[in-house]
């Protein structure tokens, strides 16, 4: 276990997860397709998960990995609900372009 970290170094894990997270953020902000936004959110989640696992190994503490299981389970549930919403939006509006969803406006 320690070997892997010794060989690659914790910094690289952090950089990778920051890059992944940023990709996710940019995806959420700049893509208008709801499915792609979802995928971007998943990327962000997984970036965090990666960081959890990496730190868990670094600290020799299993708690981080337990959290990852939690978060994966929650993410799965979230995707299920989110996709259901997307489907229902598509049925109502005929598109899943986020720019068309302006009903929040006061």
């Amino acid at each position, binding site marked *: 276990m320690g070997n892997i970290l010794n060989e690659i170094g914790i910094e690289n894990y952090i950089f990778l997860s920051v890059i992944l997270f940023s990709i996710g*953020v940019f995806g*959420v*902000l*700049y893509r*208008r397709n709801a499915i792609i936004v979802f995928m971007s959110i998943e990327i962000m989640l997984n970036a965090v998960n990666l960081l959890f696992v990496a730190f868990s190994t670094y600290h020799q503490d299993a708690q981080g990995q337990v959290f990852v299981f939690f978060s994966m389970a929650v993410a799965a549930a979230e995707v299920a609900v989110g996709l259901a919403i997307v489907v229902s939006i598509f049925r109502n509006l005929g598109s899943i372009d*986020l*720019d068309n*969803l*302006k*009903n*929040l*406006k*006061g």
Partner: protein
Amino acid sequence: MDIAYILLLLLAPFAGFLFNVFFGKKLGHNGAGYLATFAVFVSFLVTHFYFVQINQTAQPVTVKLFDWIQLGKFSIDFGIVLDQLSLLWLMFVTGIGSLIHLYSVSYMHDDENRHKFFAYLNLFIFFMVTLVTGSNLLVMFIGWEGVGLCSYLLIGFWYKNQDYNDAAKKAFIMNRIGDLGFLIGIFLLGHLFGTLDYAALKSAIMSGAEVDHTMLALAALALFIGACGKSAQIPLYTWLPDAMAGPTPVSALIHAATMVTAGIFMITRLNFLFGISSADMQTVNMVIAIVGAFTALVAATIGLVQNDIKKVLAYSTVSQLGLMFLALGLGAYEVAVFHVITHAFFKACLFLGSGSVIHAMHGEQDMRNMGGLKKWMSVTYITFLISSLAISGIPPFSGFFSKDEILMTAFHENKALWVIASLASIMTAFYMFRLLYLTFFKEFRGTDEQKHHLHESPALITFPLIVLAILATVGGLISLPGNSWLSHYLEPIIAYGGHSEHHLDATAYMLMGLAVVGGLIGIGIAYAKYLKKGEVPPADAQMTGFHKLLYHKYYVDEVYDALFVKPINAISTFLRDTFESALSGLVFGLGKATNAIGDSGKMLHNGSIGRYLFAFTLGVVAIITYLFFNKIV
């Protein structure tokens, strides 16, 4: 026992009022009138009882009925005092009051609201009795405002005519201006002495304790303003001539004999205050004398040219009241009181006589349409003549004695005021006989219709006239020069020994002679002008120059209107239309400003999730950056 009698004195007219208000209509045609007359007569009897008693014992009766108002420093009772002064006033208030009530029974015979009329008259007597008998200034103030209210109700008795209502309102409001002065005087006295009771005030002032004499003089001045309002002195006199809108008995009772003398009563009552010999108080007294003298002169000049029979009498009343104030200002309180009494007799008689004329003429009041009435109305004529002689100061009628006393006092104190007062007296003689000649002599100038109905008034009207004419003739007896019962009677009231009685020396006889000659001159001019030449005053449109100025009363009403009434109404309109909405707009403006801020904030919330997320991310990044660079994490 005293309490029972005093309650009877006070409450008999009040009971009459209540009874007439609630049941007057059911009492038959004249029931209300007789009931009201009886109620006042009861008061008169009680008064008479006490009057006789005080003449023997010289002991005033004081009764405290209940606590009324409590103030921090003192409390004010509802108390009654029957002393020489109040009983004297009560005598003629209830006495003449009874006569005028009786007269009204016939005079108001055809009015559908008779019972109301009598109710108000009774209420007036009640308040007048309160005014006169109250044992402190605030109880006097109850009566003071109460008689003002009755005056308002009675001037506007024919309430369908808005002009009459205006006159009533004007009377009330001008009186209230005076009332404010009265209240301020009360406040100052209360503040200085911690009491409003006459007896306590008197002993406090007479004890010579250190007081602020300037404040005292100011209090006296404020009280005098109150007296000006009630007794129609310059500058608050304009309501009285307008008050003639009321039924004539009201003019006789309220606006000639009783209510308008309340100011003189008040100052006489407080003579221990007004008589203080400090420099400030002397100024106040000088003001009173000058105001009185000028009122006498100004009102007399206006009276010279009036054509309405009641207006002439009204200005004559103002003028005579002015003479009384002149006497007060010169410190001759008992002289003023003497003139109040004789004036009450002959002026009531004159007003009632004019009422009799108006009654015969079916409401006509313009003398230009009268003339020759003595042929039809001999009793009215004779009583009118007697009273006119009395008011003109012709001996041996009562007015001669009282007016002569005033002139004599003025001559001794201040020659200029004496000249003014004498001029006013000459004019008085002139306009009274102008009135007499125009009304009763020469040919009748009215319509044939009116002529056909001319008649002498019934006995209920002529009886009071005769009684009053007799009193106007012999009234002078109560204070003959050199041997005055009245001065003696009032001695306990007058704090500073009164003014010294004038000896019947050569000067006195000369002055008497001058006064009589003056009166005769006035009568003579009137005789030459209206009887000999048979002149009739011109129609309103043909008046010119000074005559027109006098006829329009120096345009004082118009000036007051332009100076006070119009501006205050203009301000009111401005505040209502402009200022109020501006103020209201300011408050709404606060709300609108909030709304506007909200509106511009609304722009941010355009509903695009992308933009929300962007803002959110930016915010998180900003926070993290901040925390990072400040080394908080």
